[in-house]
């Protein structure tokens, strides 16, 4: 029996088909966190300024590549739709952008120069909490943001991504601080999993949606 469908569910289906079905977004996210994972290694090799420049340049190429791939790979297969703008949707979009930027900034601040951030001391808490306070906050923000996105879009794998990246980020800092790891191995593993999920989604997408051969 077919599921009852509401107007919210219709909007979610449109959003899912246009943004999450082809796996390109997942792959972009995976590569972005992979770059963040190997950031400490390249920083040692290139120095902080040059490394940051390289990271931002790669990020820009990544985003441009995703937009281009969407135009040449996805659009001919699933078509295009212009989203309907309502005041509520515009407000939601603005909040999401602010949250994404804030989280991304927090992740960057945590991963790139943890020593430069003034560390408040929490005397009534265990020592490791004081060591990882910024990372705990960043991880909670990441998990919260991805959970919110999953809830609003109905894309359940975003819950998994939130936990993978959040815990990967926390574990990376803990390993660096306590075990002297040279790079963010847990974050690289988390990013690799996301990248593989994106790749499998893309393969499924290409099989499921061949380019239609006729036009009216």
């Amino acid at each position, binding site marked *: 029996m077919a599921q009852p*469908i509401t*107007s919210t569910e*219709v*909007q979610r*289906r*449109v959003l899912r*088909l246009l943004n999450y079905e082809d796996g390109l977004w997942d792959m972009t996210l995976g590569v972005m966190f992979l770059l963040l994972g190997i950031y400490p290694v390249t920083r040692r090799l290139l120095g902080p300024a040059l490394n940051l420049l390289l990271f931002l340049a790669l990020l820009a190429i990544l985003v441009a590549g995703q937009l281009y791939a969407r135009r040449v790979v996805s659009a*001919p*297969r*699933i*078509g*295009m*739709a*212009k*989203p*309907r*703008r309502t005041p509520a949707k515009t407000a939601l979009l603005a909040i999401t952008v602010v949250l994404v930027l804030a989280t991304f900034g927090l992740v960057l601040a945590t991963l790139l120069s943890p020593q430069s951030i003034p560390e408040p001391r929490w005397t009534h808490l265990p020592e490791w909490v004081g060591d990882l306070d910024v990372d705990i906050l960043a991880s909670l923000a990441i998990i919260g943001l991805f959970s919110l996105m999953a809830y609003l879009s109905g894309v359940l794998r975003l819950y998994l991504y939130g936990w993978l990246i959040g815990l990967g980020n926390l574990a990376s800092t803990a390993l660096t601080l306590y075990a002297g790891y040279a790079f963010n191995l847990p974050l690289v593993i988390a990013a690799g999993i996301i990248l593989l999920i994106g790749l499998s989604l893309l393969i499924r997408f290409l099989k499921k*949606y061949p380019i*239609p051969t*006729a*036009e*009216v």
Partner: protein
Amino acid sequence: MRPPEPKDEADRPLADVDRVVHEPARLTILMYLSSVESADFVFLMRVAGLTWGNLSSHLSKLEEVGYVEIEKTFLRKKPHTVIQLSKRGRRALRDYRQTMQRTLDQLGH
């Protein structure tokens, strides 16, 4: 022998339902168009799960009654059809929803 025609409007609660909207494929098309500003032919084909011919025929019907506006252009030298729900179409969908809701509510009592 044919069954007797209902005399009262109350005996035919779905008499004023819009039959153009009532058809499942057209209702699906209108539902998806109502959630976007505009969509192209391929997108509608994918979300509605219809074939080229089927979608084309339903869109012609919807355009005929003024529920959708169809614009045919070229995108990168290829034909590109963009469809938009008209004000009349949006109103028809709203009225249809109200009629069905009212009828189903009455049925529940």
